């Protein structure tokens, strides 16, 4: 098992290598001179040249790439143009709110979505099924920030049940921490819930049509154990795949959610960097989020053998 994990971890390297190449190529071969854009309007050519030298843009492209990959391997994501600090430490400082938000969202969303999906499959064709699927299509269609403002408007401004915005570190108590995360997690989780509920329903319907399910029913297994112990277990692998792939949705959503709810996380870091054209931060955050995505999907891959013992590598 440990051998497998090590082997799979090593297999991440080429993918991350490709990510590095893609990010580098896309940003360096894109038309437009980053140095001129970072410098802004009305600047002297000397200033542009200085910024170019600071970014290493005066070097040949292959050299820039090697330097960048070299520092990536040592965990160095470069220096922020605005703050002067290293990007790695800036991300580190902002990590807690983002991890908290992601954690609460995933926990609630996965259980809720699987519950809804199983329910819809069990009641296939009925009103309940149609309601759940209708909700799923809505979840795909309403943008994160619209849901966010709707929640703020209803639950924070009118009903005053929850804080409008902001973040409280978990060190100041679990209850205030959670209170601040309820609305952002719902806003962020909508599309994710929709995605997982949908795949759960589809796979459950496939499994429920199998012969062994008819056997289980015939020998008198009760409804709930039949759905959860017999059927869901056999539907686990495709669901796990989507739980992993869906993290891409969450990553995009985190950036917007943190802006709506004014949460000082990694997403805010990147949004603030847009206006300041703080290019190393944007590049560094892309690398970190891509790494998270690849790692999560690796964990999902590893979970297959655990979820379905028939799968052996």
């Amino acid at each position: 098992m440990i051998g497998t994990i090590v082997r799979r971890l090593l297999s991440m390297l080429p993918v991350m290598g490709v990510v590095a190449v893609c990010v580098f190529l896309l940003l360096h071969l894109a038309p437009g001179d980053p140095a001129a854009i970072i410098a802004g309007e009305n600047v002297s050519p000397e200033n542009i040249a200085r910024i170019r030298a600071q970014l290493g843009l005066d070097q040949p492209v292959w050299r820039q790439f090697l330097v960048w990959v070299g520092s990536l391997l040592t965990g160095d994501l470069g220096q922020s143009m605005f703050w002067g600090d290293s990007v790695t430490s800036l991300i580190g400082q902002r990590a807690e709110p983002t991890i908290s938000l992601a954690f609460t969202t995933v926990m609630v969303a996965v259980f809720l979505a699987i519950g809804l999906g199983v329910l819809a499959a069990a009641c296939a064709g009925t009103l309940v099924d149609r309601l759940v699927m209708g909700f799923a299509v809505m979840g795909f269609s309403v943008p994160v920030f619209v849901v966010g403002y709707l929640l703020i408007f209803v639950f924070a401004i009118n009903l005053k049940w929850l804080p409008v915005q902001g973040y409280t570190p978990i060190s100041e108590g679990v209850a205030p921490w959670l209170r601040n995360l309820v609305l952002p997690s719902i806003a962020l989780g909508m599309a994710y819930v929709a995605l997982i509920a949908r795949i759960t329903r589809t796979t459950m319907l496939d499994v429920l049509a199998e012969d062994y399910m008819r056997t289980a029913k015939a020998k008198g297994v009760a409804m709930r154990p039949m759905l959860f112990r017999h059927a869901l277990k056999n539907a686990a692998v495709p669901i796990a795949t989507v739980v992993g792939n869906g993290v891409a949705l969450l990553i995009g959503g985190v950036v917007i959610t943190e802006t709506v709810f004014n949460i000082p996380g990694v997403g805010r870091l990147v949004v603030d960097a847009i206006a300041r054209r703080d290019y190393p931060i944007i590049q560094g955050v892309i690398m970190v989020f891509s790494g998270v995505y690849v790692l999560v999907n690796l964990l999902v891959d590893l979970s297959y053998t655990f979820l379905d013992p028939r799968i052996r590598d």
Partner: protein
Amino acid sequence: MTLRRFGRRNPTIVIGALLLLLVTAAAIAAPLIAGDPLLITPVDRLLPPSEKYWLGTDHLGRDVYARAVFGARISLLVGVAVAAVSVVVGLGIGLAAGYWRQVDAVVMRFMDGMMAIPAILLAIALVSLNRASVFIVVVAISLPEIPRVVRLVRSVVLTVREMPYIEAAVSGGSRGRKIVIRHILPSTVAPLIVQATYIAASAILIEAGLSFLGAGVPPEIPTWGNMIASSRLFVARAPWTIFAPGTLLALVVLAVNLVGDGLRDLLDVRLARRM
């Protein structure tokens, strides 16, 4: 099949398509049916919906209705353009990767890497490193969608190329390019149509997200995303400034998704995937 019977069998397509038709017509006729979206009238700041301003005014006294109608243009344009660009490019790469094994390994590793990059962040990076324009927004949103199209096309090619009729074409002396275009390409059309609608829906959402974050098209062009962003501080005082464009945005994406789901059932495609 008459139109009415089609409608009864595929209500989602018809409802979605009608809604889209209506919004498209409004977007095209915008100068005729709405006033100046840029006109600032400070005395009329933050007015609730009324006879004069159907959807109220924002904090600069601009007509929310006019801005919303003009905003539809960008959303629809970006949705269609991104779907077209990513399908055309992805189709080319996917056909090549699926049919010619030598290209396959390299291309697919590259696509795996591209898929790992979060779409919205890649778009933010590209948009903020270039002068803001509709063109760069379309390119930035298309790039992350391409790998999904490539994967879809490639999987169709891999299935089809084993079919006896391809073998027949090969033994009949057809050459590679002709086989791909004449015999394999047609099988990709149905799943691509469905995929293209999902891509359009996600492109509209991402464009709105980018505009909202201040990394979209130039700020002087009204879009649903930047309307919401500029009204952020007024959610309590003037909720219409946020929920009018927000509702339109959700409705349009919903309509596109409904058409996509309907087409998927109609064309019986299981390959096309959201995301």
